[in-house]
Structures are given as structure tokens and as C-alpha cells.
């Protein structure tokens, strides 16, 4: 392993409920990853720019405002447009099970719902990294 994994944790849109984003940012950091937490009020352009500038391996999106499908499509679409293929995109938040399929279809690798242990998410990222 040459360098620690670099993870961008972002909150797209206008929602400020950042308890989950902060918890997962800490968990990634405690697991030895380098974490860039963008804070709230992020547009798609801001998030994609951060991913590129920070040379991120992983992008974690936290959404609790019902805009998960909108941002999944917009952000994954913009990453593709920028030619970013190697970044793992995961999402956490209040995403109803019925919406998980469409969110994943847009390019999000996994969706973590309410009550997910942080260890589950960290393990998912690690396994992806090992398989890469």
C-alpha cells in the first residue's frame, strides 16, 4: 500500500443535517484514511472539483432531504463527463429501499441506510480497495 486512501465526504444540496456525515468522516479518519469533509451546501460542481483537486479514491455522499436520486444522477454523471472512473461513490442517509435500485443504477456502488454501523461502511471501502 503506497498511500492511505483519500476519502471525500460531502453533503450535496441545501440540507444541513450533518450528524451522519461527521460520524462517517471520523470513522474513515480513525480507520487511517485521509478524509476531506466538504461541509454543507455543496453543489455538484463543487463536489466534483473537490474530488479532482484532492485526487480522491472514494466519494461519500450523505443525503437526508429526499434529493438522493437527483444528486446521484447529477454527480455520477458529472464524474463520468470529467473522465473520472476510478472513484468509488457510496451514499448514506434516509434513502427508502425502493429508491436504492435507481440510485445504484446511476453509478453509486452502495447505499447505507439508517442504523448502519460505521464498521460496515469502512469494511466495504477496504474490500473495494483490496479488490482493485
Amino acid at each position, binding site marked *: 500500500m503506497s498511500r492511505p486512501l483519500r476519502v471525500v465526504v460531502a453533503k450535496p444540496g441545501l440540507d444541513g443535517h450533518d450528524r451522519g456525515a461527521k460520524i462517517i468522516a471520523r470513522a474513515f479518519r480513525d480507520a487511517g484514511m485521509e478524509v476531506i469533509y466538504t461541509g454543507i451546501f455543496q453543489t455538484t460542481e463543487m463536489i466534483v472539483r473537490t474530488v479532482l483537486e484532492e485526487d480522491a479514491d472514494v466519494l461519500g455522499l450523505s443525503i437526508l432531504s429526499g434529493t438522493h436520486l437527483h444528486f446521484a444522477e447529477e454527480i455520477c454523471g458529472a464524474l463520468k463527463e470529467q473522465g473520472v472512473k476510478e472513484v468509488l461513490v457510496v451514499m448514506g442517509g434516509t434513502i*427508502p429501499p425502493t429508491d436504492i435500485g435507481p440510485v445504484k443504477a446511476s453509478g453509486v456502488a452502495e447505499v447505507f441506510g439508517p442504523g448502519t454501523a460505521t464498521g460496515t461502511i469502512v469494511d466495504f471501502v477496504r474490500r473495494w480497495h483490496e479488490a482493485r
Partner: protein
Amino acid sequence: MDKTKEAAASPGSPDVETWKRTTLAASVKRIPPRQEAFTTLSGLPVKELYTADDLQGVDPAKDIGFPGEYPYTRGVHPTMYRARPWTIRQVAGFGTAEDTNGRYKYLLAHGETGLSTDFDLPTLLGYDSDHPVAVPEIGKIGVAVDTVDDVHLLMKDIPLDQVSTSYTINASAFVLMGMYEVVAKAQGVRAEQITGTIQNDILKEYTAQNEYIYPPADAVRLVVDTMEYAAKAMPRYNPVSVSGYHIRDAGSTAVQELAFTLAAGHCYVTEAVERGLSADFVAPRVSFFWNIQNDFFEEICKLRAARRLWGRMMRDWVGAKDPRSWMMRAHSQTSSVSLTAQQPGNNIARTAIQALAAVLGGTQSLHTNSKDEAYQIPSEGAIKIAVRTQQILALENRVADVVDPLGGSYYVESLTTELEEEAESLIREVLDRGGMVQSIEDGFIQRQIADASAAYQQAVEAKREFIVGVNVHAEPEGDLPFEPFVLDPGLAERQIKRTQGIRRSRAQAEVAGALKAVEEAARNRENTMPSTVRAIEAHATVGEICDVLRGVYGEYRAPIVY
């Protein structure tokens, strides 16, 4: 062994130390406690038994007193729920004004006694629905409001002289309060009949909920503008509902919730005094909003401690003379973060027990969460059960018949005192380090909350804290066990069309003149409310009015703390 037999045969231990040495020790030897140490949900140590010894520092006459009298530990009203039960006030808001108005009518038809509104994110942040950042969020987590015309539709057929209405809005609250006044007056309601509450507690936005626009000091000035204005224009209206709710849901402890909330209330009142208003002019209309979490006794004691501490802060720290200034009147809501997506039926039980704690704590109004809210805006069926839960408490369980029935309990009085002392010490720490605005700008409060939130998460993952259905008694998850709540896909288009139509058809010169007046008031540090109301009457939008102040105050960029 002989000693134990002796104790068991005697009529009883003469004091608690003897009881611990004899009866308790013998029992512990046979059956040890199921865990080494017990604490409240907030981490305060809890003993196996509380006795009169634990109340040695408590003066029953001075510290507990009587309901309706200072220090209000036992309640702000002498009769409490014997005269009138608490107000059943369920928050509602989604889609357009017509959608939410329909939900209001559904709730009132099922016995709700007060209204409460959630606004969508663009409205909360002072963006019109056709702003690019607004479009994906229109009507999603609350109702979309752009102009006073939306508020007319929102309150249609609701008699505002009879039903009190609460608005959950903060950064742009000054606009929504003005809109409410304009709509109430258009309904023919006289100024002194207008009742209701607007949350308008901007400080907890920076510490917890994060829906802010302007820098904290300017935003506090705006809050004081609304307090000054409402005290004259709508004397029965509550222009601030200081909220611990969001602080707690962001992960704080009960002590932090108490401290940062009462410190915020103190900040607004002292800023008003600084401006030359008397404390008794503004403090009687300051109300509070608390989160009712899972620790039953701690939450009851939290409300009792909040009353006693606020009373003392207003009387002794601020020097308010009017007893109404000393009363901590409260709305409560059961804890949203305690709801689980897994086994959602369990949420009905959680909410009912939290609601009981709110009632035993002496709340003035109550929102009970619905079982499906871990995922979505509640369906009608789910919200009906939540309303019925309160009605069962009020009508079947007889918990509303005796005032402060837990008063005098060794544990309850002891924990009330402990919470009060811990909260007071944290409030003093905030004041010593320069006050709320300073402690927000340097991230002190956010860090405290983030640390508490992380500690709780670790405890859950280590199974030191249990969440039934999540980290214990979990079951394989199936499909969504309730009907999904689906928003009208055409709502964004409808809302944008209405707002753009209004923008085209209004008297533009009047709008421009009123917006200019708002700007001048802000620049000259005069009260912004009279000109804001003028702009509202001219059909200026929420976004236009908030933009004017963006130009004067700028936008706040918060420190990132996690």
C-alpha cells in the same frame, strides 16, 4: 452471614449506609448487578437507590416550590393539565401551500389542537423556488413559500383567531413572521388576537441544524428586530422558540441541550436589553422547544431543570421583574433520531413513552413522531396513530390529572438538581469564553456536540447502548413495511409558475421602494421589520428580501468541525 441474618430479621436499616452494608451487600453477593456502572443516556452516574440523603442540598420551599410560582420547577401554570391538556401540535409541511393546507385540515379533523409548519429548504435558506439550487429541493422536506400569496393559501380556511400556528423557520424567519401577520390581518384578526410561535432561534442553526444565511452577530440582531417588532405588533405572539431539539438530534447530551439552549435564550434577551429594550418587554414572549429522548427520567428532569434555571437566569442574572419573564414555556417533540428504519412499528412504542415523559415533565404542547419518519414525511395513517397516542395519554391514562406527579421523588429531584448544576456550569463556561456568538465562530459548541455524538455512536457499535431492532433483536429486513409517501412530481413546476406569475404582475415600483427601505434599515441598524412587512405586502419574494440582507450582512461560512 450472621450480620446479614441480623439485618433481615430486624425491622429495617436505620439508614442507607447500613442498608448498603447489610441487605444490599448480601443480595449483590448472590446476584451481582447486570453491569458495572449505570448512567443516564447523557452519561451522568446513576445509583441503585435514591433516598432523602440525596436531597440534602435541596430546599423544598425554595427549590421545588409550587406550580405557577417561582422557580416553576413544578410547572408554569398552577392547574397545569387539569384546566386544559397540552396542545397537540403536529408539525406538517410538504409540497405546495395547498398540499400542506390539506394536511392541516386532516390533522384538525382528527383532533389536533394547534398547527405547526415545516418549510422546504429553499424557503428556510431564503431562495426562491426558481433559483438553480432550489429546484431539486422544492417542497421535499417542507412546504414551499415564495410570496405572501403562498401563505394566504397555506392558512386558507384556518381561523387564525382560534388556532395557534407555529412556523419552524429561522434564517428567513423575519420574512415569514411578517407574512403571517399580513395574512392574519387580511383574515380580519386583530393584532392582539394573533397567537402563534415562530422558531426564529438562529443560534442553534450554527451549532446543530445548519440552515443559516448571515454571520451570527447580524443574524442575532435580526432576531432582536423580530422580538421588538412582535412585542408591539402582535403582543400575544411568540417571536422566538429557543430550541434544544436540533442540538439533541445532532448528538448532544441532555446537559448540552439544556446549556446551549438556555444560553441562546439568554443571548437574545441580553442583546435586546443592550439595544435599550427592557427585559420584561421581550422575555415574557420567549418560548422553548425541547427534544424528548429515550431516557425517561432524565427527560422529565430536564424540563423541570430548564424551568428552574431559566427562571433564575431571567430573575437574578438579567434582573427581569415580571414573573412572566421567568416562565420557561415549552413545546416538546419526541426524538426523531431515536426512530429506527428497522421494525418501524417499534417506533410507536418509543414515541408513546417519550410522549409520557414530556407530559410528566410539564410541556405546554407536544409533537409525537410517526412510525415511518425514519424514511419519509409521515403518511396520513402513521400521523393519525401519533395524534391518537397523545389522546390516549390525555384521556385514558390519567397522567394529566395531578400536577407534577413525580415532584418529591428522591431520584427525580436529585437528577433535576444535577442537570441544573451541570447545565449552569456549561452556560457559565460559554459566557466566560465570550458568549454564544464567539463560541460558535470558534467551533467550541459544534465540537462539544460532535464529540458527544461520536461517543454515543461508539457505544452503540460496542453494544454498550442498545437500539432494539438495530444492534439487538435485529431481524432480516424485507421490503418497506409501509406505503411510501410520494410527492406530486409536478409540484416544482406549479410552484415556479405561480411565483413567476406574481413577479410579473405586481407593482414593481412599490417592490423596489420597499426593498430599498429594508436595505437602508439594515445599513442604519434600524429595525428591519416595518420595511420587510411593506415589501411583503408589495408581493416581494422571500428570496428578494433575503438577498437584500445578503448584500448588507454577507453570507456566513462556518468552520468545519467533525
